[in-house]
């Protein structure tokens, strides 16, 4: 009877609907299955790619997960450079060359010895296959002096050499990588043989989870933790996960910092590495005039933005782009643009605009700017959205500039900015904590995050020069001068730096690395925090 088909459907549905809720609510509370000493880190996105040097996604967290397996020549802690695969290194100004003397007791995870040949091979290999953050083109020649000394000749004085080639480039085992044609597709077991403190046990792309076990023979001492587990969790439930012991460390929303602190968690307020910027299209009338851009800087109350939109968890933007708590910060630019609508109006009048009613006009045509904003969605915490857009629109219209607000999907906005089809737009980027070479990228380069401002010769010259000053003190002074010119030219207006908070239960001494992990990753998961260094 055809009733059978119908009966079966009903029975399955009923049976399943009984089992699931029962199992759902009945189970025992989630107890930490800490067979051995497992350290769990919760992350909102979860999957950052297969943690081999060429396969992980080109984002900060991807680099962190790879750095646990592969070591670099030198590394950084919260204060300064510390030796890693290279015991010591010295710079010979005459030959413009660096000589590294390597540790002798380091071994690859598959047991073979680590020698200078691996370092030379890595430099040559990176020349053919550019590694994401680092261009090895600057090394003219690298030669191995015996098994444990390497000398690298630079083709030009390059200040960030130690930061990038020395401290970011992961050293690859020659005996594995020498015949790998397309490195990003090389995702077998062998691809994960490194010299780092941890070995990858499992990686699941769908669950967005990683499991590392300690490398007992690590040449810098046995890791303090047996296993590290990365787990994917919604950003709204991070705090609950910490409280229920489902995670030991996680990035938490700013508002919960205080509450978690009282409950005995360790709160780490992050360096201000991410900046929210007002991108200005300085090719278009009237934005091409310096005075107009300065007027914008006076008109927008950056302190109010931090107070309302970030609820105080952040610093107002410094006109020189570099955040106040960075070692390269130049205090002179501090209060060059206090919030004063009057001075803004004065500057605009100077450009020949008169105020009719409550908006400025010039020979009959109203002055109107279109402000592009990227709507809701999953931007990084503190990214400017339509709320900041509304506030800036209010402040500019108080001064007399008519603003029409338009919300776009984030990538559409990026492409609009890249093609210059915009007046002003809200955007932002990270990397401020790293080497000042970032300034070149954020002012001269062609990426949409960069201001692409070549008009001021003085600025261009200073920027090129600062790369070549090997001596730190004189470079600091030149970077300070760059900030002053930038503040005057104002190709893009830094609005604010959101403060990110990490919370952890103290089982590992997490800290923020000097100028970020590797080439500037603002995450406190420095691998050396998990290694109790015996020396």
């Amino acid at each position, binding site marked *: 009877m055809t009733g059978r088909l119908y009966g079966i459907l009903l029975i399955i*549905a009923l049976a399943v609907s009984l089992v*699931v809720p029962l199992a759902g609510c009945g189970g025992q509370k989630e107890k930490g299955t800490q067979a051995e000493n497992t350290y769990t880190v919760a992350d909102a996105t*979860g999957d950052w790619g*297969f943690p081999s040097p060429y396969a992980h996604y080109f984002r900060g967290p991807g680099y962190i997960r790879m750095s646990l397996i592969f070591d670099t020549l030198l590394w950084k802690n919260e204060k300064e450079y510390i030796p890693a695969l290279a015991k010591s290194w010295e710079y010979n100004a005459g030959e413009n060359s660096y000589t590294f003397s390597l540790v002798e007791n380091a071994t690859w995870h598959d047991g073979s010895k680590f020698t200078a040949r691996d370092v030379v091979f890595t430099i040559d290999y990176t020349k053919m296959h*550019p590694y994401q953050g680092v*261009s090895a083109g600057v090394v003219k020649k690298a030669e191995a002096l015996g098994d444990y000394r390497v000398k690298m000749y630079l083709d030009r004085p390059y200040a960030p050499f130690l930061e990038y080639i020395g401290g970011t480039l992961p050293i690859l085992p020659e005996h594995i990588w020498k015949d790998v044609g397309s490195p990003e597709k090389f995702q077998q077991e062998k691809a994960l043989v490194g010299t780092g403190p941890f070995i990858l046990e499992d990686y699941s792309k769908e669950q967005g989870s990683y499991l590392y076990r300690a490398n007992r023979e690590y040449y810098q001492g046995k890791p303090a933790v047996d296993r590290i587990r990365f*787990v994917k969790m919604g950003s*709204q439930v991070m705090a609950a996960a910490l409280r229920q012991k489902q995670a030991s460390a996680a990035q938490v929303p700013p508002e919960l910092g205080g509450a978690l602190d009282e409950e005995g968690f360790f709160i780490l307020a992050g360096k201000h590495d991410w900046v929210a910027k007002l991108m200005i299209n300085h090719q278009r009338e009237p934005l091409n005039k310096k005075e107009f851009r300065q007027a914008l800087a006076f008109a927008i109350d950056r302190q109010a933005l931090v107070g309302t939109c970030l609820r105080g968890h952040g610093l107002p933007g410094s006109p020189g782009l570099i955040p106040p708590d960075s070692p390269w910060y130049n205090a002179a630019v501090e209060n060059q643009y206090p919030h004063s609508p009057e001075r803004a109006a004065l500057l605009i009048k100077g450009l020949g605009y008169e105020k009719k009613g409550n908006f400025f006009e010039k020979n009959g045509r109203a002055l109107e700017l279109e402000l592009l904003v990227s709507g809701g969605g999953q931007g990084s915490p503190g990214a400017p959205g339509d709320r900041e857009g509304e506030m800036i629109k209010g402040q500019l219209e108080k001064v007399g500039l008519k603003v029409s607000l338009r919300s776009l999907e984030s990538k559409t906005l990026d492409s*609009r900015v890249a093609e210059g089809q915009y007046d002003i737009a809200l955007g932002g980027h990270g990397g401020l904590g790293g080497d000042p070479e970032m300034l070149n990228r954020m002012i001269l380069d062609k990426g949409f995050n960069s201001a692409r401002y070549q008009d001021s010769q003085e600025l261009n010259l200073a920027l090129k020069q600062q790369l070549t000053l090997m001596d730190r003190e004189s470079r600091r002074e030149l970077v300070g001068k760059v900030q002053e010119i930038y503040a005057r030219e104002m190709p893009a207006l830094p609005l604010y730096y959101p403060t990110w908070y990490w919370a952890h239960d103290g089982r590992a001494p997490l800290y923020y690395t000097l100028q970020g992990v590797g080439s500037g990753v603002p995450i406190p998961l420095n691998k050396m925090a998990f290694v109790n260094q015996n020396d």
Partner: protein
Amino acid sequence: MINRGYCINYLLALMVILTLNFMLPRLMPGDPLQAIYGDEAMIAMTPELKEELISRYSLDLTQAGQFRAYIGSLLRGDLGYSYYYNVPVAAVLLGSFPWTALLVGLALCISTGLGLFLGIESGYRRGRTVDRLLLGGFMWISGLPDFFVGMLLLLIFGVTLGLVPLAGAVTPYTGQGWAPALIDGLRHLALPLASLVLARLTATYLLARNTMITTMGEPFIMTARSKGCSGPAVRYRHAGRNSLLPVVTAAGLQLSHLITGALFVEIVFSYPGMGALMYNALLTRDYPLLQGILLLSAVTVLTVNLLVDLLYKRIDPRVAYAH
């Protein structure tokens, strides 16, 4: 029994969808390079890196060239390489599809079964308190979006009561046997499933109830009662059987939103489903992955419609007669 007309139809529809799949991602402003690498400032877009990426993604070919390559590789059954994940698209899809199929498929079965059962009971007692209560209750629930219900459940059961794990589909690496792992999987599944079922229950319930009311007035119900059939037999085997047709149509429709239907619930529970995968693919303008997802969604819709048409004939012989 599927005559030639049907096959040509579905092939035609598939061709149209394939061209659509190819065109849609490329129409979107912005290109993959910018979407994937633009964001992170720490990547120095060195000239050699840029043109190596362009050749790797074969973005240098003309649109027509890319289309021919796309169709060619499709015929060979190769869905291409994902730009962002650096893994074959097929592998990525195989990773997420089972989880979505489990979640949305199960939700659909439960909501259809439950909706049918409640609809028939409520339709049979039209106007009495049970009917009014059920009707009123469902009206309020149907007004809440699925992510709203999801968040409420998460806050109550997950955060405050801590009964249920807070996110994901499985507690990774707990190293248990398969039985506790199954229980753990179910405990993860409980809340997202409940929110999806609540969101979809009302439509089926209303359909079943309305058809039930009209069917109870039919003469063959009197014949059934005169045969001495028991109350439940009359309700389910005679009257209920009639409301199976509209409910199956509605279930077919809901099933076609399988892929993107649960996007928001997946985001709230960070459940590794296809919705979240597609949202990421959109953010990174990952053309091959987008094409793969669109193809999978199109194939699901076409097969579902084919199944519903076949099921029509099985459930209601008159339909076969009317065609």
